[in-house]
C-alpha cells in the first residue's frame, strides 16, 4: 500500500476558525495508508511547503493530500513543492476544506465532519494513483495574431522584433482597428493617427510579419506548439498585387454610401479605403452597394484603373497555416443604444454616441475636424455628455463599468472647448473614475480650464424642443432636477465585445464571461493567458481597456509567446485519456464524442483498436464514459479513483444523527 501523508492547513483563522483542524488531522492519521498527518498554520507559506518537502523525504511518502483552499488556488504550488522533494507532482491531491467547507458552513461539528470526509475521499483517490509523466511536445516557432488594432500590432511587433515569424490577421481591409477612428488620445491629447500611422507602416514593412488583412480565422485545430489554422481571405474584387494604390477608382466611383467608419455621418464610395492613411493602401469593393454587383453595369472603376486590377470574379481563398501560439486581439464594440429609447438615439440626429463625436473631432473625419452637429451642420453652442449609457446598468445594459468613458468624455469636453471657445459642455456622471497616470489631473483641467460643468446624476429623457434637444436630468448634489437645452447630446455608450466574439471563442476553445469578454486563466496571476495553452489575450477582447493598458498587455502577451518559443519542447499536462488495448473492442463509440478529434484507429495484431493522441487530448473524459468495455481511462480521473472518492464520501462514520 502506498505511503500517504496528509497536511491540514489552518489558513490562519479561515479554516481553523470553523473546522477543528486537530480533529481532522487525528482522523486522517487513522485512515488506511496514511503514515503521516500534520497540521500547519499556512501550508502555502515557505515553511509550510518545507514541511511537505521534509515529510516526503523523511517519511518516504508516495503521495500527499493537502487539506487546504481550492485546488484552483494552490494545487500548482504544492505540486511544485512535492516535485522539489522528488515526488511525482501528480501524486498530490487537494481536499478543498476552505471554499467548499469552512467558508460556507457555520456549525463547527458539521464542518469538521465534512472536512474529514473530504480528506478521506482524497486519501482514497491518492491510494489508487499512478505516477504520471508530463507530456513533451514539439513547438512551431511562428505566431498568429488575430486583430490588427493597436493591441495586435504591438504584440506582432514585439514577437517579430525578437526574431520570430508572425502572421497578422485583420478582418478589415486595413490595419488600425478602433484606434484609427479616434481623434486625440487622453491624457496627453496627442493625435491618435500621429501615433498609429507610423506604427501601421512599421508593421506592414516588417520582414518577419506577414500581413493578412480582409481575412478571417475560420478553423483552429491542434494544440499548443502545433496549431493548424484555416484563414479565409475575403474577395476584395481588386487584385492587390497589381494595384498601385492610386485610388483613382475611389475618386471616380459614382456610388456614395454612408460610411460605418464615420458612424454614418459621412460617406464612402462603393470602392475604396476606409480612411486616407489606410495601410495597406489598397481598395476593396463593397459588394452590397456596388452598382455593378446590383445591376450588372457601371464598371467605372474597371475603366479608370491604370493597371487593370479590378476583378469582379475574385473569390474567397482559404489557406492553412501552422503556428505555435496565438494572440487574440480582436478588440471591442460599442453598445447600440437602442435599448435606451428615452435618449432618442436613432430618432434624433443630434443625439450621437461618443465614437461619432471622435469622428467629428478628427481632422480626417466627415467635418474636417470642425465640430458640427449632424442635423444642420451648425457648430453646437451647448453640448451635453451623458456617461454610463448602458454601463453599470445590470437592468437594461451591462453591469460592469466600461472604464474608458470617464476619461474620453473628459477629453471630449476639453477638445470641444478648445474648438468652440464660447461653447459650454455639461457632463452627467455618476462617479468619475480616473485612476491612471495623469488621469485625475486631466479631469480637473477639464473642469477648471475647459470649464465643463460636471453634474452628478443621470438623465431621464432627451427630446426635441424647437431645434435643440432638451435634456432632463438631476443634479443629485444640489438635490435639484435640471434641464439643459443642448445643441448636441453625446452618449458614452458601454464598451461591449465584438458581435461575433463568442463564435471566435468557440473556434479557439477559449472561455468567455457572461458578457462575451474572453476569460483570462487567472484574474491576477495569469492575466494574458487563457485556459487553452498557447492562446493569449491582448486588449479589449478581454475587458474594456484604454490604449496604454492595451499596449502593456499586448507586450505581456508577446512575452508569453516568446517564453513559449524559447523552449526546446513543451511540457503538457498528462491528464489525458489512454486505451487499454487488450480490452478495446474496436467499436469506436469513443470517436464521435471526442471534441478534439484526438482518437484514431490503430491496427494491433489482427484487429483495430482506438488510440489517443495525447497532444490533442484535453482530458475531458467523454470517451471514458462512452466506452462500453472499460478500455478507455482518463489518467488522474480513472473510474477506480472516482468510485473510491464516492465510497469515501458516503461513509457515515462520525456523522451527526
Amino acid at each position, binding site marked *: 500500500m502506498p505511503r500517504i501523508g496528509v497536511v491540514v492547513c489552518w489558513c490562519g483563522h479561515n479554516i481553523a476558525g470553523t473546522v477543528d483542524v486537530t480533529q481532522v488531522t487525528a482522523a486522517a492519521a487513522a485512515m488506511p495508508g496514511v503514515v503521516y498527518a500534520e497540521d500547519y498554520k499556512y501550508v502555502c507559506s515557505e515553511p509550510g511547503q518545507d514541511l511537505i518537502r521534509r515529510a516526503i523525504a523523511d517519511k518516504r511518502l508516495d503521495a500527499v493530500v493537502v487539506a487546504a483552499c481550492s485546488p484552483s488556488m494552490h494545487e500548482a504550488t504544492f505540486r511544485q513543492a512535492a516535485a522539489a522533494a522528488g515526488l511525482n507532482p501528480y501524486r498530490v491531491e487537494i481536499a478543498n476544506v476552505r471554499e467548499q467547507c469552512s467558508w460556507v458552513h457555520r456549525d463547527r461539528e458539521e464542518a469538521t465532519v465534512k472536512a474529514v470526509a473530504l480528506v478521506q475521499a482524497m486519501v482514497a483517490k491518492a491510494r489508487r494513483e499512478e505516477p504520471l509523466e508530463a507530456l513533451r511536445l514539439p513547438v512551431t516557432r511562428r505566431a498568429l495574431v488575430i486583430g490588427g488594432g493597436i493591441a495586435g500590432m504591438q504584440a506582432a511587433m514585439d514577437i517579430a522584433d525578437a526574431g520570430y515569424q508572425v502572421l497578422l490577421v485583420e478582418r478589415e481591409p486595413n490595419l488600425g482597428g478602433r484606434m484609427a477612428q479616434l481623434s486625440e488620445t487622453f491624457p496627453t491629447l496627442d493625435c491618435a493617427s500621429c501615433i498609429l500611422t507610423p506604427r501601421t507602416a512599421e508593421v506592414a514593412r516588417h520582414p518577419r510579419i506577414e500581413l493578412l488583412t480582409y481575412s478571417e480565422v475560420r478553423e483552429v485545430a491542434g494544440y499548443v506548439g502545433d496549431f493548424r489554422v484555416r484563414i479565409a481571405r475575403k474577395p476584395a474584387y481588386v487584385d492587390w498585387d497589381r494595384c498601385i494604390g492610386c485610388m483613382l477608382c475611389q475618386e471616380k466611383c459614382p456610388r456614395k454610401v454612408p460610411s460605418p467608419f464615420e458612424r454614418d455621418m459621412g460617406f464612402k464610395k462603393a470602392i475604396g479605403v476606409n480612411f486616407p492613411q489606410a495601410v495597406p493602401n489598397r481598395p476593396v469593393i463593397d459588394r452590397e452597394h456596388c452598382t455593378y454587383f446590383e445591376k450588372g453595369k457601371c464598371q467605372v472603376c474597371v475603366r479608370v484603373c491604370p493597371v487593370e486590377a479590378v476583378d469582379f470574379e475574385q473569390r474567397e481563398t482559404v489557406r492553412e497555416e501552422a503556428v505555435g501560439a496565438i494572440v487574440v486581439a480582436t478588440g471591442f464594440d460599442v453598445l447600440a443604444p437602442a435599448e435606451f429609447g428615452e435618449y432618442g438615439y436613432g430618432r434624433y440626429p443630434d443625439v450621437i454616441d461618443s465614437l461619432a463625436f471622435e469622428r467629428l473631432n478628427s481632422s480626417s473625419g466627415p467635418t474636417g475636424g470642425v465640430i458640427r452637429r449632424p442635423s444642420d451642420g451648425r457648430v453646437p453652442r451647448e453640448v451635453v455628455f451623458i456617461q454610463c449609457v448602458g454601463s453599470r446598468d445590470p437592468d437594461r445594459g451591462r453591469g460592469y463599468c466600461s472604464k474608458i468613458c470617464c476619461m474620453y468624455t473628459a477629453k471630449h469636453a476639453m477638445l470641444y472647448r478648445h474648438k468652440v471657445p464660447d461653447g459650454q459642455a455639461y457632463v452627467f456622471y*455618476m462617479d468619475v473614475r480616473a485612476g491612471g497616470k495623469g488621469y485625475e489631473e486631466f479631469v480637473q483641467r477639464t473642469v477648471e480650464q475647459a470649464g465643463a460643468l460636471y453634474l452628478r446624476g443621470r438623465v431621464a429623457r432627451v427630446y426635441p424642443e424647437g431645434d435643440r434637444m432638451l435634456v432632463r436630468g438631476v443634479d443629485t448634489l444640489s438635490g435639484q*432636477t435640471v434641464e439643459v437645452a443642448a445643441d448636441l447630446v453625446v452618449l458614452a455608450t458601454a464598451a461591449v465585445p465584438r458581435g461575433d466574439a463568442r463564435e471566435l471563442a468557440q473556434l479557439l476553445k477559449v472561455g468567455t464571461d457572461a458578457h462575451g469578454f474572453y476569460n483570462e486563466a487567472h484574474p491576477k496571476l495569469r492575466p494574458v493567458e487563457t485556459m487553452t495553452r498557447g492562446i493569449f489575450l491582448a486588449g479589449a477582447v478581454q475587458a474594456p481597456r484604454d490604449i496604454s493598458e492595451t499596449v502593456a498587455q499586448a507586450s505581456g502577451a508577446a512575452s508569453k509567446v516568446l517564453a513559449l518559443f524559447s523552449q526546446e519542447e513543451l511540457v503538457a499536462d498528462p491528464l489525458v485519456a489512454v486505451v487499454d488495448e487488450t480490452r478495446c473492442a474496436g467499436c469506436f463509440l469513443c470517436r464521435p464524442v471526442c471534441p478534439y478529434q484526438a482518437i484514431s484507429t490503430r491496427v494491433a495484431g489482427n484487429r483495430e483498436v482506438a488510440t489517443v493522441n495525447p497532444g490533442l487530448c484535453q482530458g475531458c473524459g467523454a470517451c471514458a464514459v462512452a466506452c462500453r468495455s472499460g478500455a478507455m481511462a482518463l489518467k488522474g480521473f480513472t473510474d477506480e479513483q472516482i468510485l473510491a472518492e464516492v465510497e469515501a464520501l458516503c461513509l457515515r462514520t462520525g456523522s451527526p444523527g
Partner: protein
Amino acid sequence: MRLTRSQLRSELLARVEEIGGEAVAHCYQCGNCSAGCPLAGEMNVLPHRVVRLLQLGQVESALSANAIWLCAACQACAARCPRGVDLSRIMEALRVVQLRRSTIEPPGLTPDTLARAPQQAIVSLYRKYGS
C-alpha cells in the same frame, strides 16, 4: 446627523424593505428616478434622496417626506432604474408603514371633482390612504 449601527439595522427599515420587497442597498444614487419623476417639482425631498435617507437609516425623515404621498406610482423610475429597483414599491411601503401607525387624512376633494372624476382615479387616490 449622527449615524448609528442600530439605525442602519433598525426593525423599521427592515419592515420597509420587507413590505416593499426591495433592498435599499441596491440603489447607487444615480438619481435617474428623480430626473424623470413627473411630480419631482412638488416634492420637498426628491425620490433618490428618500432612498438615501433609508440607506442612512433615517426612516422617520423618509416618512415625513411629502414625496411618499405625491408618488403617483407611474413607474417611470422603475422602468429606467439601472439597478432594477422599483422605487414605487418603496414609496408604497413607506405609506403602508405610516398608515399602520396612524391615520392619515386623505386630501379633500371638491364636490365637483367627486362628481366628475373617473371612479378609477378616486378609488386609486383613497387606496393610497389605506381606505
